[in-house]
C-alpha cells in the first residue's frame, strides 16, 4: 500500500487517509454566469499529471494538501493548507 506523509502525523498507510478531491478555486457566485458555474460544479480537466489535492488523515482529522502525480502514483509532497513551501 502507498505511504502518504501527513504533515503533522508523519508517514502512514494511505488507508488512514481520506481523499478530498482536487484543490480548486471557486468562481465568485455573484459574478459568474450559469454555464461558468455549472462548469465549476461538474467539469474539470482530469488528464493525468501532478494535481494539488485535499487529503485528510482520518484518525486525527488532519486536513492537508498533497501534490500527487495521478499517472505515476507518486506523492511529491504534502503540506498544510496555506503553508505551501
Amino acid at each position: 500500500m502507498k505511504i502518504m506523509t501527513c504533515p503533522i502525523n508523519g508517514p502512514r498507510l494511505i488507508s488512514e487517509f481520506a481523499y478530498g478531491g482536487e484543490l480548486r478555486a471557486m468562481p465568485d457566485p455573484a459574478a459568474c454566469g450559469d454555464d461558468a458555474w455549472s462548469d465549476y460544479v461538474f467539469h474539470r480537466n482530469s488528464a493525468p499529471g501532478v494535481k494539488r489535492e485535499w487529503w485528510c488523515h482520518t484518525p486525527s482529522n488532519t486536513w492537508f494538501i498533497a501534490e500527487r502525480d495521478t499517472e505515476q502514483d507518486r506523492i511529491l509532497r504534502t503540506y498544510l493548507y496555506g503553508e505551501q513551501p
Partner: protein
Amino acid sequence: MSVPLPHSPAPAATLSLTDLTVVRQLVGVKGPKAAQWLANLGLPLPETANHWLALDDDRLIARLGLSEFLLDGPPGSLDTLAATPRTHGVYPVLRQDAAFLLCGAGAPELLAQVCSLDFATLEVTPGALALTSMAGVGVTLLPQPGDGGSRYRLWCDGSYGLYLWETLREIAEALGGDAVDAQTCTESLP
C-alpha cells in the same frame, strides 16, 4: 537503529490487556489558543505535536496534533481543569473514550497484528505518541517505556470500545496473554 520485531508469537503470560475506562478521568481541549490557556493554568506542555509528558506520578498530558490536548488522570483529579471556563480560541472536547492498557513482551506482536505503525521507530523518540488506526478504529496510542518492556496506553471513541476490547482480547489470548482487572495494573500510572 531499531530492533526487529519477533515474528513468532510471544510466550504465554507475557501479555496483559486491561480496561481502564472506568478508573480514569479524561479532559480534552483544542483550538488555536488551547496551548496558551493550559499554560496559563500552570500546566507544563509537550513542546511538539504528538508527544506527551507526565504531570505528576498519576496524571499525564498528551498533545494530539498541533492544537489539541488530552489530559488523563484518576477520577476527580481533573475536575478543576474541566470546570475552568473556556476563553476565545479554546474549545472544550468532551472525552468519553474507552481507555485500555497493554503490557508485556507480547504487546509488539499483538500491535503488529492490528496496527500498521512501526512502533520500533515510534519509540526511538521518547515521549512520542501516535494517532492511528487499529483494527479499523481510530485510536490514540501512547507508549510508556518501563522496566519489563513497553506498556501501551490507548484510547478510542467510546462507542467502539467494546468492539476494540473484544478484538484485542481475542488476539491477546491467542498469544497466550489475558485480560487483567484494572486495580492490579493501575499502580504507578502513567
